[in-house]
């Protein structure tokens, strides 16, 4: 039996999903764009450096930006930040050959909702683009490990004097993240914990929201502390 929501997901029309591909490697950029076009996605633009990635995304307002983290001009997290600040509906999927965990985490903290290694297969990649278009985070085990690690790091930090709140995960959220990080699918986790896979999905989404919210609050605090909020 399927819920109405699932039905609507299943009939998601690829031709209505617009995508911008940003990668400085021509071979990769073309291959990714071709795969997307072949699968019926609407590739509205491609970009080969950070600045054009931002400009073209802002101009075309696609559903998904497929972003390589190592673009010349702007760092991956700067591109993500620029798109999030512009408040357009575009969601960012990171497709990276990089093993640089820190870069990935920074990009996710400022608003990217998915991360996939370039070594992923084509079907896995297309599924990730579909999920991102639907607003669902693409949580590979690697990304779950990074997010979990970041919360562990925040929890281990000494209590701040100003009593600032450090975001914490619930016991269940930690449990779910750990299972995602050790390679379990949402369905398997659901069966394992006796909850629906949709609940699993919500837990995962929550962890990401908490992290991004915390990061945004930190940025605002930083801006206020530096007097950046007052117009001059």
């Amino acid at each position, binding site marked *: 039996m399927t819920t109405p929501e699932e039905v609507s997901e299943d009939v998601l029309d690829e031709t209505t999903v617009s995508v911008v591909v940003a990668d400085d*490697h021509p071979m990769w950029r073309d291959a990714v764009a071709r795969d997307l076009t072949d699968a019926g996605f609407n590739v509205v633009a491609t970009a080969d450096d950070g600045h054009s990635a931002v400009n073209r995304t802002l101009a075309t307002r696609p559903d998904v930006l497929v972003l390589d983290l190592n673009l010349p001009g702007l760092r991956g997290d700067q591109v993500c930040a620029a798109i999030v600040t512009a408040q357009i509906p575009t969601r960012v999927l990171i497709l990276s050959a990089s093993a*640089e965990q820190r870069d990935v985490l920074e990009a996710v903290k400022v608003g990217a909702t998915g991360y996939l290694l370039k*070594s992923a297969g084509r079907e896995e990649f297309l599924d990730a683009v579909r999920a991102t278009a639907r607003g669902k985070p693409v949580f590979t085990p690697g990304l779950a*490990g*990074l997010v*979990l690690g970041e919360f*562990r790091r925040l929890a*281990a930090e000494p209590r701040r004097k100003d009593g600032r709140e450090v975001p914490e995960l619930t016991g269940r959220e930690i449990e779910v993240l750990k299972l995602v990080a050790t*390679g379990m699918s949402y369905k398997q986790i659901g069966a394992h914990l006796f909850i629906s896979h949709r609940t699993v999905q919500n837990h995962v989404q929550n962890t990401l929201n908490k992290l991004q919210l915390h990061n945004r609050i930190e940025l605002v605090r930083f801006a206020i502390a530096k007097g950046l909020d007052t117009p001059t």
Partner: protein
Amino acid sequence: MREFRVNRGGTAAVEPTVVTALWSGLGLFRPIAWLYAVYSAYVRHQDIARPWLAWVVLGVLGAWTLGMVLYRTRNTWVVGIELALACVAIMSTRLVDTAEVIAGGAKTLPGFWPAAAVLAWAVLKGWRGGMLAAFCVGVADLLEVGVPNENTINNIVILVLLGGCIGYCANLSRDGHAALSEALRVQAEVRERDRLARTVHDGVLQTLSYIHRRGLDMGGESRELGSMAADQERLLRALVSSVSAPDLDAVVGGDVDLRTLLGRYAEGAVNVIPPAEPVLVARRVADELAAAVSAALDNVRRHAGAEAQAWVLIEERGEDVTVTIRDNGVGVPAGRLAEAAASGRMGVANSIRRRMSDLGGTSIIDSRPGAGTCLELTVSKKQLSS
């Protein structure tokens, strides 16, 4: 100023500044000591039994002293000859002076010139060399005087202390220099690796992942080629992944980044999931964890089935570190674990458990048929004293 060439143990080495300064000081000391010996002999030339011999000996020492100013190589031969000259010069006092004068506590012919030989040994060979040379000169002194007087003993003690102290100083300075060179070498290596990593990342890694992906798409033999490319990509990425400042601190502090250590186990069917920041643990803890993970992965390969994948999650939890190894293999039916433990057939699980409890840590194993096996290891990052 010309450099001293030093040949130690067959290889020409760059000497630290302090050692070079010691050689320069010694170069100044030798002529002064020689002039003083000549002056002393001249002042008492009327008491000397065989003045011609005294001048011959002092002439030879003078020639050597001059030679050492011009000839800048210092090796075992040079300091050996100098020590022999010093001892012979001391012994020649017996022929130069009458027995009464010697018994009366007269100075030896070369005065404190032999100290130069002791210092040369100390600077070249360290404290052992310095003390050995001081011992030789001391023996020559004793043979010369026959019945030692207060001055003889005094001089020998001073020589031994001098040889030992200067030699120790030379040792320390060389060790410090070696450590500094090593640090500079590591730094240069890191910089070079960064540069390589950038280059490789832009080209080779991208191409390898591209081949992997296309290979998977095309299927058949291309699939095999693709997975070969993926293997090489992963190895290469591990090789060029940059060494950061915390890693260098870890080298100095003796701690190990668990991410690097366990990252080596990543391959086609094994995924290592690290956090973004280095996980620094004591060397022994890291080695035991690595051995436990290796044993667990071997077990997965043997028992979980050919299609099984494994995930190794590394978590830092305050003072503890947790490593979770899960596979999606066939798993173990409920009760089988307990049964195996009861009959003592849990070789791998037991050895892992022992490793962890030796470190004051814990291991939890959980397995169900069809759902794979999950092993969770938790241990303190710092080694507990047992």
